[in-house]
């Protein structure tokens, strides 16, 4: 079931909400169990076969969590360590089998010319998310940070449907206290108003903006994959469209998850905070998929030594963390290279900051307006380049796209422009302008460029959902000091705006369109 489907909006969500608050009048445990069951139903709607796998994973990790905690109470450090190692290994084997086994064998086959095979392995939805969530739980139990072991709450923490499939990656210390709090189980109109507004803003982003621009991105990447030599303009158009599609898709999903959760009175952590406004790559990763960045930092980068073992080791740790972060997104070399590219960007960024500090400058100082704009643009271009590798089906497609973007196929304009530009087109031709003899793979009616322009304006200039909702604590870890011009409050104008956006977005749900992050 998708958040952007009629079944979810008109049936599943109202029933689950109603059941939750009615049962909560009788018992909080019943209400939590209802929500966990509904989440399992939500998960099983795709493929019921994997509900068993999810439940086994929950039972296994909960049991190991308890044993590790008990060993901790009895001060049996070695036993605790063995249990943690065993549990982590089991989790990684599960993830490795479902997500990486075929990738590993394909890589071996292509290098050694062998034909090894595991057969077809269908990736269970959300396996990366629920595995990482539980690894964090086990590690924190080992470190004595976990305080609550209520099984229903734990099951709900893992399966909670707003986050189960595509994040945010939850941390038990944020969620368990909320599940235990009595106020969560009381219907609250403010939570409902805030939740509905955020949910429909997210739906609008997904259905209107992300799906709207997606139709311009796919033909370009598909053409590159089929060997078509793209022009500079086509390649950049495709890359920009995908960059914006991914932005609105993930931003929309994150808003919808936060909004849905808020309807149940539970506040999720902030996961997406206008990443394309970042002035450098370090900041980009503090704004994009924030909960994954936090997980990678806390459970990979810092255990590897972080920045505590010298500059060289710090850069190595960065690269390793980002390579694994890339691999987390998918079992393919394009993801690994994408991760490596971002690792390289981070190294350069940290190196630049170190150099500035040596020169007596403070890298954290705010920039002048032109320098700020230039930094945002430079960061954005670096991110776009990396997204090309991320989106491409294989390395050949990525190379073909990047070559075209670098102008290595020549700077040729679509031949439709020659006609539509009239005398200016003729003038350009006389003065060396090249127009393709063939039809462009994109419909160059101007629609594509209107989409790109509007989307970029939204991305760079508009306040984000959390900023608009800032008076109502829309997400955990969100702090906004500035007083922005656009502030949501329950008023007639906002009601009208929300109604128009929500009805327009809901009516525009015409086909099943999965969120890009579902595949990770």
């Amino acid at each position: 079931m998708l958040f952007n489907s009629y079944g979810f909006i008109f049936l599943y969500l109202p029933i689950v909400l109603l059941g939750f608050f009615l049962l909560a009048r009788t018992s909080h445990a019943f209400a939590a169990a209802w929500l966990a069951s509904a989440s399992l139903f939500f998960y099983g709607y795709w493929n019921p076969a994997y509900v068993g796998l999810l439940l086994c994973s929950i039972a296994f990790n909960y049991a190991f969590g308890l044993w590790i905690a008990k060993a901790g109470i009895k001060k049996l450090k070695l036993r605790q360590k063995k249990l943690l190692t065993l549990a982590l290994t089991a989790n990684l084997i599960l993830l490795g089998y479902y997500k990486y086994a075929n990738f590993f064998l394909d890589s071996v086959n292509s290098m050694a010319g062998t034909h090894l095979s595991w057969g077809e392995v269908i990736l269970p939805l959300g396996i990366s998310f629920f595995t990482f969530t539980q690894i964090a739980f086990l590690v924190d139990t080992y470190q004595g940070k976990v305080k609550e072991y209520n099984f229903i709450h734990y099951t709900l923490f893992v399966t909670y449907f707003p986050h189960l499939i595509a994040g945010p990656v939850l941390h038990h210390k944020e969620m368990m206290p909320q599940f235990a709090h009595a106020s969560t189980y009381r219907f609250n109109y403010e939570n409902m108003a805030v939740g509905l507004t955020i949910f429909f803003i997210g739906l609008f982003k997904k259905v209107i903006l992300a799906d709207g621009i997606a139709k311009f991105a796919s033909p370009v990447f598909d053409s590159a994959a089929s060997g078509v030599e793209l022009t500079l303009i086509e390649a950049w158009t495709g890359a920009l469209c995908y960059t914006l599609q991914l932005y609105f898709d993930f931003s929309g999903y994150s808003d919808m998850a936060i909004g849905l959760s808020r309807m149940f009175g539970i506040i999720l952590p902030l996961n997406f905070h206008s990443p394309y406004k970042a002035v450098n790559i370090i900041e980009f990763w503090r704004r994009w998929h924030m909960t994954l960045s936090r997980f990678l930092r806390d459970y990979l980068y810092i255990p590897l030594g972080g920045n505590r073992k010298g500059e060289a080791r710090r850069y190595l740790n960065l690269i390793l963390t980002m390579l694994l972060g890339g691999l987390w997104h998918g079992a393919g070399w394009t993801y690994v290279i994408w991760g490596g590219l971002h690792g390289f960007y981070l190294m350069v960024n940290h190196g630049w900051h170190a150099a500035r500090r040596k020169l007596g400058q403070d890298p954290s100082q705010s920039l002048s307006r032109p320098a700020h704009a230039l930094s945002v643009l430079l960061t954005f271009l670096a991110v776009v380049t990396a997204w090309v590798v991320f989106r491409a089906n294989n390395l050949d497609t990525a190379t073909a796209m990047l070559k075209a973007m670098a102008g290595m196929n020549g700077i040729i304009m679509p031949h439709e422009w020659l006609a539509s530009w009239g005398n200016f087109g003729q003038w350009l031709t006389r003065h060396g302008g090249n127009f393709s003899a063939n039809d462009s793979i994109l419909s160059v009616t101007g629609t594509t460029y209107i989409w790109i322009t509007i989307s970029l304006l939204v991305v760079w200039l508009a306040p984000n959902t959390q900023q608009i909702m800032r008076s109502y604590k829309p997400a955990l870890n969100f702090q906004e000091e500035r007083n922005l011009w656009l502030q949501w409050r329950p008023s007639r104008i906002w009601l009208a705006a929300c109604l128009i956006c929500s009805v327009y977005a809901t009516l525009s749900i015409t086909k099943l369109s999965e969120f890009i992050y579902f595949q990770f």
Partner: protein
Amino acid sequence: MTPKHFVTRFAYGFFLLFALAGIFNRIVDPAWYYRDTVIKGFNAVKPEFLSFEQRVKPALLVRDQPEALILGSSYAEIGFDPTNPFFTDRGRMKGMNFAFARAPWEKVQCHFEYAVTHSKIKRALVGFHPGDLPMADCEKDSESIGDIDTIDLLFTYSALDFSIKTILKQKESDITHTPEGMYFYYRGVNPANYFRQGLEARSASCGNSKNNPGKAQNLNLSGLRRMIQSAQAHNVELVLFAYPEHAYLLEMDYLCGDMEEKWKVMQQIGSFIDSESAGKIPAWQFYGYNAVTAEPVRNSMWYWQDSRHFNYEVGNMFLEDIFAKSRSPENNPVFARSLNTSYADFLNERDEYLRFHPQFTTNMRWVNPKFSILPRN
């Protein structure tokens, strides 16, 4: 406003607006599916039906249960009126034009399969092009046939958009389809130009693989066999016909040197149908030189839209030939002839026509000066 007011008003407003969109789409009915509210000047003309016909026609077939069907591509959709009295046995059978624009043979075969399994049809008139008529994988190729989603028709932004366009285009649009599914096409819009393009296109494909000598011996007719078997199994009176062409297109076949092979292909198909059905399934063609097939090309024509699309007035004559004259001992068909007709007879007819109608050649030269034709010596 309190959050409570916001939530309650939002909920009421959301469902109200949603319901209003549905009611509006239901009344305007741009897909012409519900057909219960017809208001002249508001929704009587359905200019957007073409966008829906692939989904709506199969649903109408299931709902209306027609007994006499016309199947094929746009030639059949434009050319045959399913209410024709000869086709419907003077109205005793309910007729429907179940043909679709750009439907290749495989789709037509799947449409036929769908029709015999979803409607109690008694008669089916099916058009084809002389050539391969292979078996379609209907489960794969046409799995979505008949899928009609009420949500899609009522509660989507595209439906709302189509409804608004339907209302706005009432004054400027003519009726495009009849309720029984026949398509009117762009009647009267410069057919000479379409002829010019049609002849050019035919000239460009002279001697292509489709018309290769020896084709007749290697035809794949597995799909046709399946259709005949389905018709027999469901007790459907199947009548087949090769799509007619304007005589200028026949001349292009002749100029290209493809005519004889095409004729052999047609004869091969005719023999196949006879052997598969023990002579019980009639198959017709309308190739010939007469006042209808050789209508002079002008900027406004009565019988033809272009060199292949004929108007329903022509279709009416063909239907009379097929379902009345060919079955009456006193009459002979005027235009229709068996697929097995001799090629020599056809050539003699052509020569005679050209000899007595010199304006035919003059007119063709006017259409396109490149193509000069002469009768055989």
